[in-house]
């Protein structure tokens, strides 16, 4: 025989303040949980969306980041001629040899603080090689000019990035001619210019990386073997998507540790709160429980009833917590990608999955917290209870 | 001047739409050193009268003077220390704090005074001695019988040497033997220690111990017996 839920609902409403406090405590834990995971999600998403499965990123052998790499012109020619490279609609290989450097840009309002922003010297093929990149304002930089295109996540975070404005770095003035989007990826935190323009200014005669589209997206392993085995080259070939996703590296680990560490501790505290609340509920309702047991309700039903009550209060808390966390979705923040030492801007990413996890987490806390008190209720020695 | 002077007291309770008049012009004196039993059917206002004397409740109109002070005119803030000094109250259900020992329960009222620890201890011992429970000082209420609990409550009521000892149905939940013990104790407190006692009761045996018996019916004093001792 199941104890009707209305009993729980009414009992809960008898102690509105106490119930509200318990639910709110759980709500805060859930909000922090969702918030922190959204932070990590955002960072990971930005990096994961950065590369494509169908593209290959070639770096000098042993280099673990584009920054550390150097590829000479002749190596670029050899790579471009590889049969693994896809040919674009215009008949040219979809290859982009790129210059990769970090330029210090002063943060607005605090000229002593600088951020190291990625400046990527691309070939015009880059726009084709990377399918998710699009110009959202202005026109692409023209060849031979000191023109740059700015990733949209940089807009507003640094000065002089408007279309038509002049940005100064590496001792030269550059005109901002467009803004681009790149599917929310790390590229959106970069400044793109022509590789031939960047090279003399920065690095002499070498490129840092070569990115190309695979002719056969399924043939990555073969392409990797061929290129790395080629005696004329000393390179490592990486799947573009994997390479960038891996860059999350230590920061990703740290965020995860932080998220789980903090929320576990908070959760234990919230569970203790739930335990207290439920123990008090049981002891104040002892006579009622005794009556229920006398009427013939099975102790298991009493146990279930209290567990459900605890879970419901927690679920409400979970929903409130999810609502509290929701507004942070989309807020842009930045940190340093320690693999490339560059500034990366990304948005908090609250997914429906995350919200659901939060609510489930809340219910788990409620069930854990309600277990022992519910057990006590079920095991109530009826005679004593009635006398109380 | 009598210890307690009640003059033309009216007390009206408003419960929802019902208007209950408990007292309509009660006038009464209680002399010092008396042992008064207040008797009457339920609803006659016995407990209410006790509450008025202790300042736990206020008359709708009229005056209640205890030991020269107009109780009905005091504020809650004034009443607390006044009660601490002048009133010892014993309830039907013993109202000992279950987390404290008998000793600590009796000590409670003394915490409100400026007495030192040693002075407090001495008085508690005396009080418990008077009620015959000095061998049970370290026991918790759950380790005492009903009668013993009530005697501890009485000890707590007298430990501060109050002007008035008020008891509301003290033997209501006790068996016959314990009731007799408690009543004998009260008689002794009155005759030997000269305590002014007022007891609300149904128990006819209590009436036997009292020097004055007041019968209340529907808020009016209908009989006053002075029992010769």
């Amino acid at each position: 025989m199941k104890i009707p839920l209305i009993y729980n609902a009414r009992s809960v409403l008898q102690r509105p303040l106490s119930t509200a406090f318990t639910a709110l405590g759980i709500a805060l834990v859930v909000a922090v949980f969702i918030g922190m995971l959204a932070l990590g999600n955002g960072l990971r998403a930005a990096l994961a969306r950065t590369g494509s499965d169908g593209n290959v990123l070639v770096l000098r052998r042993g280099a673990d980041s584009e920054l550390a790499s150097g590829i000479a012109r002749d190596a670029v020619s050899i790579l471009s001629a590889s049969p693994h490279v896809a040919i674009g609609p215009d008949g040219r290989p979809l290859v982009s040899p790129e210059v990769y450097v970090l330029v210090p840009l002063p943060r607005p309002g605090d000229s002593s603080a600088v951020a190291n922003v990625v400046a990527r010297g691309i070939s015009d093929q880059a726009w084709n090689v990377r399918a998710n990149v699009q110009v959202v304002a202005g026109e692409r930089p023209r060849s031979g000019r000191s023109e740059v295109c700015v990733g949209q996540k940089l807009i507003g975070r640094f000065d002089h990035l408007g279309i038509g404005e002049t940005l100064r770095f590496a001792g030269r003035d550059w005109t901002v001619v467009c803004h681009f989007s790149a599917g929310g990826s790390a590229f959106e935190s970069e400044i793109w210019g022509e590789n031939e323009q960047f090279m003399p200014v920065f690095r002499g005669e070498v490129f840092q990386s070569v990115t190309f589209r695979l002719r056969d997206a399924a043939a990555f392993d073969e392409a990797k073997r061929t290129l790395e085995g080629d005696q004329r080259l000393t390179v490592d070939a990486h799947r573009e998507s994997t390479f960038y996703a891996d860059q999350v590296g230590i920061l990703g680990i740290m965020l995860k540790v932080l998220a789980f560490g903090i929320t576990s501790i908070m959760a234990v505290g919230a569970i203790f709160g739930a335990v207290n609340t439920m123990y008090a509920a049981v002891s104040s309702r002892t006579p009622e429980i005794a009556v229920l047991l006398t009427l013939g309700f099975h102790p298991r039903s009493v146990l279930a009833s209290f567990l459900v009550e605890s879970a419901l209060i927690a679920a409400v808390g979970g929903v409130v917590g999810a609502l509290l966390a929701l507004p942070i979705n989309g807020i842009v923040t930045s940190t340093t990608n320690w693999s490339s030492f560059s500034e990366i801007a990304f948005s908090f990413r609250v997914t429906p999955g995350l919200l659901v996890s939060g609510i489930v987490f809340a219910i788990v806390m409620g069930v854990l917290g309600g277990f022992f008190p519910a057990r006590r209720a079920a095991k109530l020695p009826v005679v004593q209870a009635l006398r109380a | 001047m009598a210890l307690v002077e009640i003059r033309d007291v009216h007390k009206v309770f408003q419960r929802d739409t019902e208007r209950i008049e408990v007292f309509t012009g009660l006038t009464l004196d209680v002399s010092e050193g008396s042992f008064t039993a207040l008797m009457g059917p339920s609803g006659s206002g016995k407990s209410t009268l006790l509450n008025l004397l202790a300042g736990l409740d206020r008359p709708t109109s009229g005056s209640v003077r205890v030991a020269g002070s107009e109780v009905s005119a005091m504020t809650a803030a004034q009443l607390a220390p006044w009660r601490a000094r002048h009133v010892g109250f014993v309830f039907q259900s013993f109202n000992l704090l279950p987390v404290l020992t008998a000793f600590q329960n009796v000590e409670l009222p003394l915490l409100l005074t400026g007495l030192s620890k040693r002075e407090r201890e001495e008085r508690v011992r005396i009080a418990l001695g008077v009620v015959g429970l000095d061998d049970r000082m370290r026991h918790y209420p759950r380790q005492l019988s009903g009668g013993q609990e009530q005697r501890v409550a009485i000890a707590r009521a007298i430990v501060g040497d109050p002007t008035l000892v008020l008891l509301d149905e003290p033997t209501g939940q006790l068996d016959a033997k314990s009731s007799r013990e408690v009543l004998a104790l009260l008689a002794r407190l009155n005759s030997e220690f000269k305590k002014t006692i007022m007891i609300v009761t149904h128990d006819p045996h209590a009436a036997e111990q009292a020097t004055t018996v007041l019968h209340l019916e529907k808020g009016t004093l209908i009989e006053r017996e002075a029992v010769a001792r």
Partner: protein
Amino acid sequence: MKYLPLVLANLGRHKIRTILTIASVTLALFLFASLRTVVTTLHTNAQFGSARRLVTLNATGLVFPLPMAYANKIRALPGVESVSWANWFGGRYGDSKQFFAQFAVDAESYLAMYPEITMPEDQKQAFLHERSAAIIGRRLVDRYGWKVGQDVTLQGTIFPGDWTFTIRGVYTPTAPAIGDDALIFHHEYFDERLGHAGIAGWFIVQINDPGAAAAIAKVIDDQFRNSSAATKTGTEQAFQAGFATMLGNVSLLMGTIGTAVVFAILLVTANAMMMSARERTGEVAVMKTIGFSDRVLFGLVISEAGVIAGAGALLGLGAAKAFYRAINFNGFGFLPGFNITTGTLVMGGGIALLLMLASGLVPAARAARLPIVQALRRVE
């Protein structure tokens, strides 16, 4: 205090509840101390920097090298006491995922300029006299079990190939911002391997007069403004402070979480106090009858909350201080010198105080407003 036995007795009424509540406060304050210390550590490290050391970088960006020839020119400038240089190596050890810094430095001048890097004199001399030698921070000894005299091989990433060094010394930094997990080797060795390219990563310039820092920095930058590699010179502290911002808006993040934590714990504690009080309405009525004033009753409630908050604070803050010291925590290398400051402890105490007052409020107010007669009737 004479009321203490009463307060403690009331807390002992439901031992489990009291313990759980204290445990919650403990956890919350442990978290609070941890979060705040992240912020204080970053802040402290951002302040590091000798007033007499300047750092000269390539103006184009810190990843670009400077010609070593600049050293002599800088040294000749008035106000400059000595010049040293260093280069970031960025190698990997085996397939260890754990990152640690490696620098090639002009050993003699660098060590002279950084008295914060201390080690036994014999080790120092051994290092200075051997070109392929290296010194390592204490933490690397614990992490990899390296010993003095051992050979260690790193894989270069920026500078490819296998690089082997012989460990000749273990240093201990006296300033936490200088990590205790770096490997330092000779710039000469570095140069040799690179075919005497004559490049340096950055220069460290020691000056006589800290007050002249800005002026000398300008002179240095003016000197090279029109050269192949223009420079940007600033105080070491400015350089360090710049790094501090790289992690992101950490203080906002920690502050937000910290606030949520404190708030949550307030709710838990207040709730426990309220429940406790609700069960005792009869007793409160009796106490009021005996003559306990509202003020005294309020004090008793607050004291109960105080014992819980105080015990939780002592345990939580104490545990935090001991724990991080015991595991020698340095936040994966990002938080060297992680130490819970007195300021944080005081703040924790303040939170406990706030907890005490806030959680006692509702039950105390209820007790004050309690209609004695009705409450007694309910009991009887």
